[in-house]
């Protein structure tokens, strides 16, 4: 394990308040839309009202002549542009690559989901643009559509793409079919579970937006947009627009939530670029919430059957998974990669010798699906953790006992899974036992009886999840000592509200013996930073944190060298504290501003880069208790306990925020959030009046603590924590719901989201069953 800084006052582990909060909470945040000058033109995307149709634009005259309109762009006007492509096509079992289904910037003659883009109207005001969009004359020829993932491959279902023989986007296989079949053949028992992982809409507070300026002198663009990393977006924009990357400066300032969904390049960005160049004016576009529901990539949406082979002692022998993953109407940027990432975590925290996992990606006439907080890992944890509970049931032991028997044991590390991942460390049984103690697992029966007296069923459930973070790679950090003695730290990740400004600063400041508020973290500008990997997969702190430490440490060494030179003493004799360089044991010192005046540029500018070879593997136990009100079917989470292993905690306060937020999203998925399309693939849950997000009063108090086992893959021992909350929560909540039903009726399977209606219906059918 790496050295943890001795300067814990500001370093790793300090519960420092967020430096960005004063700015953000006093209305001084600068979000993308804040960058638009008053005279910017407004773009509006005319979107398809049909889920599937052929169309022709018959007349644009009225729209073009409408007041304030400066341009109306159609597919024909974008000949120099390329489609948005999927960068993660998966090899099929026969070795072939699947056909791409790229997203046209504007549809030419057919639309494939409600909200598919048809035309871009640019006007002096957004109202004029919208008014004019209604004057575009179109002929639609509606075609049959399909929205349901489970039915997409059925015979006779309309193809999403005319002329296609089926809605199969691709097939992918991971594992060892022969070994798995052999294990099932000799299994004493087999547990099976069928699950739907419901489709979600990622509702960040700040909808996407962009503001594009074009400089005629050098045919260059400045693109402000809400992203999770400017460099990746710049490169995609260059590919799509056929404009050299060095002619596109992408800037992201404050971002109000991203959750993976803001990683991607969406149509409106190249559209604004085209319009800005055509008109020589700044062009802005801002999504509204309704548009957001139709255009921004959706999350989850899997239909899974999973089976576990066990021996007579309940020891797992093999797992087999059949996964249907919705892709939506096109293959989105990371679309096929998301289920794959989940598949790579199929076996979870358990020692399962072999696996066979078949994924079928399917097209439906729905908004494309891509990364949403956890990106495949919540889906995978959901499958294995629900299946393990089913195994306990089948085998006739408790849910903790089946886990104990099958956990990878501490002495087995490093442990390579059948999917090829190598876990470095982990103490699964220990955090499970601790969490059970904290949750008073053994006292449950009393709470159950108490709940019964109030007309409720009560259930308790756990998940002992593991996930993969950070992944191989690096995120270099660049530091500079400024003339005033403060520091700038530049890094190519992108805070979306997580608190990067605080976290990186506190790591680097500890090395420099200075106040963390004097380390100014800068992100989000391709002009000031040459490269960057962006934020996603909980990589910012494991990779960027380690690089920040290295950059800070090198700068600290340089400062000691400069001070030693000036004060004519050995650099080892210099200590950095309270923002100055002091001679150990003496009175002489130099302020950091004085150091900045004395150092050479090479000494004052440092770079740190930590290269990581493998992913890190955060893990933990979540325990949830639910009440189900018999009269109404309302399910409430009444108690929630978390013991996580994040390796090393950077800032307990930031960490707690990440976990709380993630668990709330998980509870939301379990009990409330649900994207519903009707049979014509029209979006029914189209606004927040019908799409239910969890609110504070839907959520109980959380008990959260860490039981950290430092990673030996990561320099600082950090494992990553940005997604863990969503990953651990769904199976814990749903195992609790299932437990409540099992105790009462002997049957417990119900899918997410457990709405009052779906639970009431379930209770009725279980009662009917009991009557028979």
């Amino acid at each position, binding site marked *: 394990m790496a050295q943890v800084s001795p300067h814990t006052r500001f370093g790793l582990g300090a519960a420092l308040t967020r430096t960005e909060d004063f700015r953000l909470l006093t209305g001084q945040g600068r979000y993308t839309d804040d960058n638009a000058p008053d005279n910017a033109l407004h773009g509006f995307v005319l979107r398809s009202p049909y889920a599937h149709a052929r169309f022709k634009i018959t007349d644009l005259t009225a729209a073009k002549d409408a007041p304030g309109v400066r341009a109306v762009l159609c597919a024909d006007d974008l000949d120099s542009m390329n489609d948005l492509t999927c960068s993660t096509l998966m090899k099929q079992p026969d070795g072939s690559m699947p056909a791409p289904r790229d997203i046209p910037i504007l549809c030419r003659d057919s639309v494939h989901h409600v909200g598919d883009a048809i035309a871009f109207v640019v006007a002096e005001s957004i109202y004029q643009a*919208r*008014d004019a969009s209604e004057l575009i004359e179109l002929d639609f020829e509606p075609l049959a559509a399909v929205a349901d993932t489970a039915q997409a491959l059925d015979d006779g279902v309309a193809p999403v793409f005319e002329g296609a023989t089926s809605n199969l986007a691709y097939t992918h296989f991971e594992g060892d079919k022969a070994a798995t079949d052999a294990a099932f053949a000799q299994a004493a028992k087999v547990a099976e579970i069928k699950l739907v992982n419901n489709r979600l809409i990622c509702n960040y507070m700040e909808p996407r937006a962009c503001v594009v300026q074009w400089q005629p002198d050098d045919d260059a663009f400045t693109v402000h947009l809400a992203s999770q990393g400017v460099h990746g977006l710049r490169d995609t924009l260059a590919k799509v627009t056929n404009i050299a990357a060095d002619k596109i400066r992408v800037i992201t300032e404050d971002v109000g939530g991203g959750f993976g969904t803001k990683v991607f390049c969406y149509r409106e960005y190249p559209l604004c670029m085209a319009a800005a160049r055509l008109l020589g004016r700044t062009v802005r576009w801002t999504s509204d919430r309704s548009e957001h529901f139709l255009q921004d990539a959706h999350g989850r949406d899997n239909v899974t059957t999973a089976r576990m082979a066990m021996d007579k002692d309940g020891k797992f022998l093999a797992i087999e998974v059949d996964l249907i993953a919705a892709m939506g109407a096109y293959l989105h940027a990371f679309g096929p990669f998301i289920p794959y990432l989940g598949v790579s975590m199929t076996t979870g925290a358990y020692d399962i010798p072999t696996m066979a996992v078949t994924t079928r990606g399917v097209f439906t006439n729905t908004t494309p699906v891509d990364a949403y907080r956890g990106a495949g890992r919540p889906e995978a944890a959901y499958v294995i953790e629900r299946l393990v509970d089913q195994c306990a049931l089948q085998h006739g032991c408790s849910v903790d006992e089946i886990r104990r028997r099958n956990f990878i044991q501490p002495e087995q590390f490093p442990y390579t899974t059948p999917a090829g991942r190598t876990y470095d460390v982990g103490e699964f049984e220990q955090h499970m036992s601790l969490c059970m103690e904290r949750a008073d697992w053994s006292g449950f029966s009393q709470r159950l009886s108490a709940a019964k007296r109030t007309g409720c069923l009560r259930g308790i459930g756990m998940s002992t999840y593991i996930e993969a973070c950070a992944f191989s790679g690096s995120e270099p950090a660049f530091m500079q000592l400024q003339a005033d003695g403060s520091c700038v730290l530049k890094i190519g990740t992108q805070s979306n509200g997580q608190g990067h400004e605080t976290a990186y600063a506190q790591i680097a400041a500890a090395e420099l013996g200075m106040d963390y508020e004097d380390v100014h973290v800068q992100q989000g500008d391709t002009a000031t930073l040459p490269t960057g990997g962006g934020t996603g997969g909980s990589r910012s702190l494991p990779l960027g944190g380690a690089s920040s430490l290295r950059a800070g440490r090198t700068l600290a060494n340089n400062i000691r060298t400069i001070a030693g030179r000036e004060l004519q003493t050995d650099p080892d004799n210099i200590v950095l504290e309270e923002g100055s360089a002091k001679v150990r044991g003496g009175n002489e010192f130099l302020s950091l501003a004085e150091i900045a005046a004395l150092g050479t540029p090479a000494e004052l500018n440092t770079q740190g880069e930590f290269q990581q070879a493998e992913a890190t593997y955060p893990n933990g136990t979540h325990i949830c208790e639910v009440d189900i009100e018999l009269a*109404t*079917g309302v399910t409430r989470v009444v108690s929630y306990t978390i013991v996580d292993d994040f390796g090393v905690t950077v800032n307990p306060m930031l960490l707690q925020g990440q976990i709380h937020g993630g668990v709330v999203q998980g509870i939301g998925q379990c009990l409330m959030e649900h994207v519903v399309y009707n049979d014509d693939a029209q979006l029914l849950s189209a606004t927040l009046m*019908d799409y239910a*997000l969890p609110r504070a009063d839907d959520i109980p108090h959380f008990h959260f603590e860490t039981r950290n086992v430092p990673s030996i893959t990561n320099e600082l021992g950090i494992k990553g924590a940005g997604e863990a909350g969503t990953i651990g929560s769904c199976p814990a909540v749903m195992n609790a719901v299932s437990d409540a039903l099992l105790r009462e009726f002997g049957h417990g399977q119900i899918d997410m989201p457990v709405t009052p209606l779906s639970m009431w*219906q379930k209770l009725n059918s279980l009662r009917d069953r009991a009557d028979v």
Partner: protein
Amino acid sequence: MYDFQYTKVQSIDDAVHHMQQDEEAVLLAGGMTLLPALKQRLAQPTQLLDLSGIENFSSISVDGDAIRIAALTTHAGVAGSPLVQVHIPALAALANSIGDPQVRNRGTLGGSIANADPAADYPAALVALDATVITTKQTIAAEDFFVDLFETVLESDEIITAVSFPKPRRAAYAKFANPASRYAVVGVFVAESDAGCRVAVTGAQGSVFRWQEAEAALSSEFDAKSIESLTLPTDDMNEDLHATADYRAHLVVVMACQAVREITG
């Protein structure tokens, strides 16, 4: 939002005058229903007549055996009114259950009942309490005021000025809130007065209705037990993402029992 003209009217007469001049003009009260409809381009009025400048249009007063609430009184105003809290606490509680603080601080009693959303809360209170709606043209019993889904007896140039709520002996409102919008999936207002017991249901059908079978049962014995095994026909029940017809019919019974239990303690 389409283009429209904005006029801040000075008096009720002034508003009526504008409405007679311009058939496409609409009144703007709290805007909590009207403005979202405009933003989504579901309505295209020529003119908005903003009522907020009219004096004394949001007062609450005692009027004999009734509490009179002027039409522009906000939900928060009703919820926070000491008069309402003392004389009809169930009405104050109902107002406090509407939407969220923003909606309660803008939305108004007049706007809510003029809109006659099938999932709105107030209609249940008006009908159960046998309230009277006072408009620029008539004084009408609440039961006759609500006609159907988003439909009242109001004519195009008619303005609600106040609602008069007789004080009940005891009353309670139980609401099963839509988990997303927090409108009533089903809301049941139970009120008992010298004239008898009234049970009004909102959210379940196109418009608020009295559940007479429950009224009769409660009149003979005011106890949740008297109604808990009653059932309602599902034919006219609303259906949406959040509740099927049979679930709604079931929830009416559950909510009615809950309201009665709140009264009987």
